[in-house]
């Protein structure tokens, strides 16, 4: 791009040499850094316009000719590209005093407008809500001179004693401030954010014999006391009650007067010409002031910037042909950008408008499109955004930087907050004519209550409070954002204003203003919930939950971190409607027990964090899994054994069955139960299970009758004889007509080929489902220990159905043979 511009310039020179001058004039030769808006009513051909006020919303106000034929001077407001004629109270046909003197950041304007008629006197007005308010309808003449951001207006009214008196208009009421003394007229010129007023006291007949005054809490203070005549001029006041002007008696010098402390500071000390007269023209809210000191012949005026007790002299580029050598700063914004005019050499009137910052004074005419055909000669205002009100002495122009920086933040900050962030974005305006060129630099300017922690952004090289880069972006494009982290002082008041500025090729251009609410955090209450999870050998996720409230309602925003002692940490998503939950990974084999939860709420905008450490995650005993299918049906007379009592578990442990093994169950459905006691009683609990087993009746053909099944146990006695205990079980049923249980006798028993040497004893009556035992002893010679020998037991039974009468075919008989392993 730079090469293209050089080529264009060379081409222009060559074409001029060829006589094609018009073509050369239509080629821009500048790196255009400002758009230029001529302040005139569209569609008119006015003779002049003036910007007298420029606020931080980019609104300009002043006065302008609307039509050369009537020479009418109208107050106007220019806002967002719209030019509004504020009108008059009916007068102004004579080109009289109509205009705006003050414009606050709410777009409210203060000024003066003529009434119609013979008197044609101007009246102070407040322009608000789209209309003019006559602030002093009962006074013949008045004027409004200043307005603060609270809508308080100051000015002067002509009173009945023909003295003008300062006034303050506030909340719909105009209050005359009274007289500093009975021989003076007073004019209130400005009012700061605190309602402090400064003004001038004049002889009733004119400005001679004036002195500046500061008015606060009902008291006038003569800034130059004891001087009362021809003392000074006063020009401006900032929001700190600091007034600047020029002292015109004794040791003449530009001054800065602190209305709150009464301290007068000579701003000429350290300048090129101390105590040689001059004036301070403007002061910003950082106490930085600009003005000029009078010099000697050939060096008429030397500009200065006063900042923190240090004077920087501003000289003209070159003397005029008559030797005049002047630099007159007229305005300074919050970031120290200065606007003014300076001699560029040549004729005596050859002033050029300039902007000065960071030690660089740049002719504004080199920063605008050279094809516009205008020469800017002065700067009257520069706002905190870096917009400039300039003039070519005929018309006013509003210059807006094409390279801008914005600062944004989320919500409000809180006192003591750490690493709060701003986001800075640099954009080459869609209205720009060219891509950016040269080094781009962004500088952070934090208020005292904010401390810079860091600045960084993709492609930016950041050090301290400045980030730079050299790559170019096109029209309408933005560089990657810069994130600025700051710490907020514990005692920070609200609001705090973050400011940032961007410069291109060393020229400071757009500024960001980011007013930030500092809000003490409200308290919050986080309430965690107890949680439980069974012991497991496997890892698993457990949901933890909490509620967060503040001010009696649920909270939205922030997160809750759950710290579970001995297990781990999980963080919720954004708290929504007061609810937070997180999934905690619990490793396998963490023993059963209680693990404290500390739930920590992070806090959110305007709400402080909180914590709750009263709840726990309880790992409960796991319940073993018992597997026990219903056993197959049993046949009556069978004893419970491993075929039925065969429950298994997923962990080691002990089974206790009810009824136990060996039990002969009755016919029908029987419920079996088991209690399982795990070996690991720390992590597992005992549990139980049941199974159903059906006991079927005995063989069908003998159903309805007793049936007998014989089981046995064998042992050897002291004589080595073999003792057999036979258990005879009635697996059948009782005939309906029988009165007594079947009576059983054993009549033929053998162990191998051996008969008992004693017994068998008589089992006797055995009811259905019951058993009886019979003991018999066989000689030890029946077989050696470990030999398998058949044991045969036979018996018979009969029923008594009454009166000793047997049932059926006199009862029945039975037998049993068992493969028997000899003891």
């Amino acid at each position, binding site marked *: 791009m730079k090469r293209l511009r050089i080529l264009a310039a060379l081409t222009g020179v060559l074409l001029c040499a060829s006589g094609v001058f018009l073509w050369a004039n239509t080629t821009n030769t500048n790196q255009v850094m400002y758009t230029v808006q001529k302040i005139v009513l569209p569609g008119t051909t006015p003779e002049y316009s003036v910007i007298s006020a420029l606020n931080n919303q980019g609104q300009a106000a002043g006065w302008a000719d609307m039509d050369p034929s009537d020479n009418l001077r109208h107050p106007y407001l220019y806002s967002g590209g719209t030019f509004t004629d504020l009108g008059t109270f009916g007068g102004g046909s004579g080109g009289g005093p109509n205009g705006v003197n003050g414009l606050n950041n709410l777009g409210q304007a203060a000024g003066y407008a003529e009434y119609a008629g013979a008197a044609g006197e101007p009246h102070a007005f407040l322009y608000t809500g789209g209309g003019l308010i006559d602030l002093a309808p009962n006074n013949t003449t008045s004027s409004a001179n200043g307005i603060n951001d609270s809508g308080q207006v100051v000015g002067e009214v002509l009173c009945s004693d023909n003295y003008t008196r300062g006034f303050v208009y506030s909340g719909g009421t105009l209050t005359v401030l009274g007289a500093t003394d009975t021989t003076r007229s007073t004019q209130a010129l400005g009012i700061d954010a605190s309602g402090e007023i400064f003004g001038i006291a004049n002889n009733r007949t004119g400005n001679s014999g004036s002195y500046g005054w500061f008015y606060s809490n009902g008291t006038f203070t003569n800034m130059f006391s004891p001087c009362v005549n021809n003392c000074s001029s006063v020009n401006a006041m900032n929001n700190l009650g600091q007034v600047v002007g020029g002292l015109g008696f004794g040791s003449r010098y530009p001054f800065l007067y602190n209305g709150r402390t009464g301290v007068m500071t000579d701003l000429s000390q350290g300048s090129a010409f101390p105590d040689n007269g001059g004036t301070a023209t403007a002061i910003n809210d950082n106490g930085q002031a600009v003005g000029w000191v009078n010099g000697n012949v050939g060096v008429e005026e030397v500009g200065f910037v006063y900042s923190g007790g240090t004077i920087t002299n501003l000289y003209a580029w070159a003397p005029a042909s008559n030797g005049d050598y002047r630099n007159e700063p007229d305005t300074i914004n919050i970031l120290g950008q200065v606007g003014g005019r300076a001699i560029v050499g040549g004729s005596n009137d050859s002033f050029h408008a300039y902007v000065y910052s960071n030690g660089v004074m740049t002719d504004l005419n080199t920063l605008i499109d050279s094809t516009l055909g205008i020469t800017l000669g002065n700067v009257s205002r520069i706002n905190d955004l870096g917009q400039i009100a300039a003039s070519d002495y005929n018309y006013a122009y509003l210059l807006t930087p094409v390279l801008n920086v914005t600062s944004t933040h989320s919500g409000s900050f809180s006192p003591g907050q750490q690493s709060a962030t701003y986001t800075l974005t640099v954009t080459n305006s869609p209205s720009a004519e060219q891509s950016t060129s040269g080094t781009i630099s962004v500088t952070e300017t934090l208020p005292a209550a904010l401390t810079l922690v860091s600045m960084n952004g993709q492609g930016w090289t950041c050090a301290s409070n400045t980030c730079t880069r050299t790559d170019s972006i096109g029209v309408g494009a933005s560089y990657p954002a810069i994130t600025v982290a700051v710490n907020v002082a514990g005692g920070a008041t609200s609001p705090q204003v973050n400011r940032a500025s961007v410069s291109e090729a060393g020229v400071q251009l757009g500024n960001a203003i980011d007013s930030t609410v500092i809000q003490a955090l409200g308290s919050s209450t986080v309430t965690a919930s107890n949680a439980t999870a069974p012991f497991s050998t496997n890892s698993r996720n457990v949901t933890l939950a909490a509620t967060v409230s503040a001010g009696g309602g649920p909270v939205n925003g922030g997160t809750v971190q759950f710290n579970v002692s001995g297990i781990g940490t999980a963080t919720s998503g954004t708290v929504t409607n007061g609810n937070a939950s997180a999934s905690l990974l619990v490793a396998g084999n963490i023993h059963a027990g209680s693990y404290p939860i500390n739930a920590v709420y992070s806090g959110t905008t305007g709400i402080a964090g909180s914590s709750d450490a009263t709840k726990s995650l309880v790992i409960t005993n796991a319940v073993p899994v018992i597997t026990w299918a219903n056993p*197959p*049906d*049993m*046949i*009556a*007379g*069978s*004893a419970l*054994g*491993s*075929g039925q009592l065969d429950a298994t578990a997923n962990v080691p442990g002990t089974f206790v069955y009810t009824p136990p093994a060996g039990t002969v169950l009755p016919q029908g459905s029987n419920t079996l139960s088991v209690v399982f006691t795990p070996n690991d009683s720390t992590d597992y609990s005992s549990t139980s299970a049941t199974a159903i087993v059906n006991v*079927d*009746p*005995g*063989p*069908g*053909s*003998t159903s309805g*009758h007793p*049936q*007998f*099944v*014989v*089981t*046995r146990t064998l042992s050897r006695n002291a004589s080595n004889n073999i003792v057999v205990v036979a258990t005879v079980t009635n*697996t*059948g049923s009782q005939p309906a007509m029988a009165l007594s249980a079947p009576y059983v006798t054993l*009549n*033929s028993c053998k162990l191998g080929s051996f008969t008992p040497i004693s017994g068998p004893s008589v089992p006797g009556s055995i009811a259905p489902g019951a058993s009886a035992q019979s003991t018999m002893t066989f000689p030890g010679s029946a077989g050696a220990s470990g030999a398998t020998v*058949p044991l045969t037991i*036979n*018996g*018979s*039974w*009969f029923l008594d159905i009454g009166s000793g009468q*047997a049932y*059926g*075919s*006199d*009862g*029945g*008989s*039975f*037998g*049993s*043979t*068992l*493969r028997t*392993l000899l003891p």
Partner: protein
Amino acid sequence: MKNIIPILAIAITAAFAAQAGVLDISLDQSTLTGSSGSVLEFTGTLTNTTDSVLWLNGDDYNVLISDPTSYAFDDSPFYDNTPSGYLDANGTTGDIGLFNFTIFSSLAPGNYDGSFTVTGGAGTDSQDILGSVDFTVQVTAAGQQNTAPEPGALPLVAIGIGVLLARKRFGA
């Protein structure tokens, strides 16, 4: 000399199954007929219905005969035909002799119901009831033959008569 019931019964295809149990006992014929001196041979198949080995450790019988001296119950075929003492999982013995019933003269003619039960289980010492089967002994008067053959046995009877006639005709 034992009066063995002719084996006409093998032609009868119907099986006589036991009640439900882990051991299925299926008799080839659940009713056998004889008279005094007859030895009735009950045959059948034992089938392990489980997926585990079943030890066949013993047997029991019951008959509605009050006089144990009027008959003899011989279960030696069961032991002889299950010499290993066990059945493999889902295994079967095939058709084997299970027990013999001998009719003595003191046993009056009539029908006598009984049951045959096998005991055992998972081990060699188990004595659970594994399965049972019913049977009937039909005692006839001496000299009285069996009742008419089952219809399914008629072809075999005819063949048998034919063979006898042929032998007589050809002097074989």
